[in-house]
């Protein structure tokens, strides 16, 4: 696709694109990765602490303590989104806040708050899944396909 595009451009345009690419600020790969590692690690450690609390003081076992933990983390990140703190954290940490479940919660809460002016049904209700919807669609569909493949393998007597 990009090479096809390039052919249609005049030489002046190609030169400009080369110049623009050279002047483009370099992404600080290493720094971003370190930040993502630290932020993501801290969020997961907080998750582990919440999980520990649920196991120690609640009636949860090691296996099913993950669900309430995720719910608490979602609640915290929705609150941080509402108060406008999450944006600052996300800017610093990049994928560190986007990859954990906090990013999923943030995308839903920020879309819901942002589209409030369009009304509660067409705005909040319809736009809430603007980003999270794609995650759910691809997650559900891939899980479905994998289950079908596993059923097929089992029926054929493998594994």
């Amino acid at each position, binding site marked *: 696709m990009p090479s096809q595009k390039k052919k249609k451009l005049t030489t002046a345009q190609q030169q400009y694109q080369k110049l623009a690419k050279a002047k483009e600020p370099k992404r600080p790969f290493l720094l971003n990765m370190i930040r993502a590692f630290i932020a993501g690690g801290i969020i*997961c450690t907080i998750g582990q602490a919440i999980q520990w609390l649920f196991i120690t003081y609640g009636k949860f076992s090691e296996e099913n303590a993950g669900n309430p*933990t995720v719910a608490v983390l*979602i609640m915290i990140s929705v609150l941080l989104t509402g108060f406008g703190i999450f944006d600052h954290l996300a800017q610093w940490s990049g994928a560190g806040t986007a990859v954990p479940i906090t990013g999923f919660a943030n995308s839903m809460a920020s879309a819901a708050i942002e589209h409030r002016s369009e009304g509660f049904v067409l705005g909040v209700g319809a736009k809430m899944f603007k980003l999270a919807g794609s995650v759910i669609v691809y997650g559900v569909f891939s899980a479905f396909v994998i289950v079908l493949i596993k059923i097929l393998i089992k029926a054929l007597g493998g594994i």
Partner: protein
Amino acid sequence: MGKFIYAFLVGGGICVIGQILMDVFKLTPAHTMCTLVVTGAILGGFNLYEPLIKFAGAGATVPISSFGNSLFQGAWHEVQRDGIIGAITGIFEITSAGISSAIIFGFLAALLFKPKG
């Protein structure tokens, strides 16, 4: 205490993979999240995600890849109990906590907070 260190290392590691997808492969955050969810579902299918959860606890359950794994696990458990229809009925069995709390708290946030700028 060891679990906390493993959670930090594994959770941080998954986020670094996400950051690499964003920076090196120039994916948008939405594409990155979808890729990780599908990867989680595939790892779940090969029975590789559950050992990771056993090893790292929240380090594996908090990143979004766990969402894909939970979708698969929910469907697979119901398939083993109810037959093939479980692939439809069981998908949201485990992830209900994540999706419903995100909807409920997101809606409450829309009621309470006003958009900024």
